[in-house]
């Protein structure tokens, strides 16, 4: 059977550098750092005292208080992002067949804050159980897609993918596949995360995964820099409306670009460390190219996973060089996590929005805080240091890798008839 084509017709973003897609792009192209001293809790006792939090976000601007309080933050973010994306798509909710529209969302952790609060209450109550009836429905990761479906009445496939920091890319690939197979006409997809909590920061600190550059937090997220010391936790998320091409064309939708490939692999190596030679990263990118029926030479820009960790950054670059060979030097490469921080399960979603915007604006967002490229990394590679770069971008490859050895890669392509 012939697979259908899938296009992007709407976007939403709620990020540490902008609360809408437009603000997000302004942040990306201007190289803005989203890092700030933690405000969600008192971080005095924590090794890391900063994160990339949302700025000036008031959920009650979007969701009535009595509804918002039944959602964990990550679900609130999801609903707000989905609302921007659906409005942007121009889908006529009165006319469209909502039974054929799905919601496939990604979240690495789910309602961490809810879990934390309920367990703290249990401890305060001498372990006598007095759990709130909304504890479980707020905490479970799939509540985000459930709330989005209820808001719009979308009755197609609905679930949340959980593959740590690859979650949103897995969600987008699943949405892509269902639409290609003709099982849906459109899907709200992407991901969100809200892990800037005591357990989130403390837990990642215990893994030695977070930067502790408390005295210079704005430059802490510095992928590929020789002095990088870990990732910076971010929160928020992003969303895409993926739509079957003929359906989008028939309704005269604005089409941003086409999603042409999705690749998935596993490292099968270690629960947190990436494979040192980037074996899984290589397989994921190769799988995405195969799926898109493309050659390495077809890729113009790679938005890397690039989290600013010692082990993660070089293995991805090795994998890129092994796969792309000499073409590596023709491409632009950047890690937008240098600006947004690492949104975990939402990372693939905000980076997909960045990829689509890069094609739309023919501009590569930079890797900021790149002062001295790590000697382990080939100095001839264009890592788009510190300043956005205008160039021809027909195709963007976007990588996400998660604890557990999960790898997922997307390829977006400029629209051609």
């Amino acid at each position, binding site marked *: 059977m012939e697979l259908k084509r899938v296009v992007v017709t709407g976007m939403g973003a709620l990020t540490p550098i902008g609360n809408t897609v437009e603000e997000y792009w302004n942040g990306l192209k201007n190289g803005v750092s989203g890092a700030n001293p933690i405000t969600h809790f008192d971080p005095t006792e924590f090794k890391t005292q900063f994160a990339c939090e949302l700025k000036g976000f008031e959920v009650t601007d979007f969701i*009535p208080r*009595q509804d918002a309080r039944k959602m964990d933050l990550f679900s609130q973010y999801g609903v707000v992002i989905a609302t921007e994306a659906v409005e942007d798509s121009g889908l006529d909710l009165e006319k469209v067949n909502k039974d054929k529209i799905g919601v496939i969302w990604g979240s690495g952790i789910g309602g961490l804050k809810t879990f934390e609060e309920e367990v703290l209450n249990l401890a305060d109550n001498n372990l006598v159980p*007095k759990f*709130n*009836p909304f504890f479980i429905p707020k905490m479970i990761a799939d509540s985000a897609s459930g709330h989005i479906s209820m808001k719009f009445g979308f009755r197609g496939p609905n679930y949340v993918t959980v593959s740590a920091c690859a979650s949103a890319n897995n969600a987008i690939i699943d949405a892509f596949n269902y639409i290609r197979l003709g099982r849906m006409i459109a899907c709200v997809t992407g991901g969100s995360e809200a892990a800037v909590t005591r357990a989130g920061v403390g837990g990642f600190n215990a893994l030695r995964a977070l930067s502790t550059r408390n005295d210079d937090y704005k430059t802490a997220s510095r992928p590929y820099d020789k002095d990088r010391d870990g990732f910076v936790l971010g929160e928020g998320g992003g969303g895409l409306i993926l739509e079957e091409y003929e359906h989008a064309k028939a309704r005269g939708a604005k089409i941003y670009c086409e999603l042409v490939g999705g690749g998935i692999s596993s490292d099968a190596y270690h629960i947190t460390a990436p494979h040192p030679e980037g074996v899984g990263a290589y397989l994921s990118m190769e799988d995405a190219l195969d799926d898109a029926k493309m050659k390495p030479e077809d890729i113009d820009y790679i938005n890397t996973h690039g989290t600013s960790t010692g082990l993660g950054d070089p293995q991805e670059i090795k994998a890129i060089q092994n796969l792309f060979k000499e073409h590596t030097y023709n491409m632009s490469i950047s890690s937008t996590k240098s600006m947004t921080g690492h949104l975990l399960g939402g990372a693939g979603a905000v980076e997909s929005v960045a990829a689509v915007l890069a094609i739309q604006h023919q501009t590569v967002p930079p890797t900021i805080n790149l002062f001295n490229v790590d000697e382990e990394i080939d100095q001839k590679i264009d890592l788009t240091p510190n300043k956005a770069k205008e160039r021809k971008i027909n195709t963007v490859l976007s990588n996400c890798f998660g604890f557990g050895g999960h790898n997922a890669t997307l390829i977006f392509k400029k629209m051609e008839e």
Partner: protein
Amino acid sequence: MSDIASKVTKIIVEKLGVEESEVTTEASFTNDLGADSLDTVELIMEFEKEFNVSIPDDQAENIQTVGQAVAYLEENSK
């Protein structure tokens, strides 16, 4: 309004997001104030916390209206 009634009203307004004027003695949590079964469980728990009482499940099932809640709490709270 008794102290208990005003506290009950405050909890209901807070949890269900309704106007104070809607929280009448006869108002049913589910039929009039838009609560679902989980909201009702949460309200009972809030009453327990606020008034330092333990409401057994079989008693809680009989608390369907604002007036029933106030009456129960006036009788049972310390």
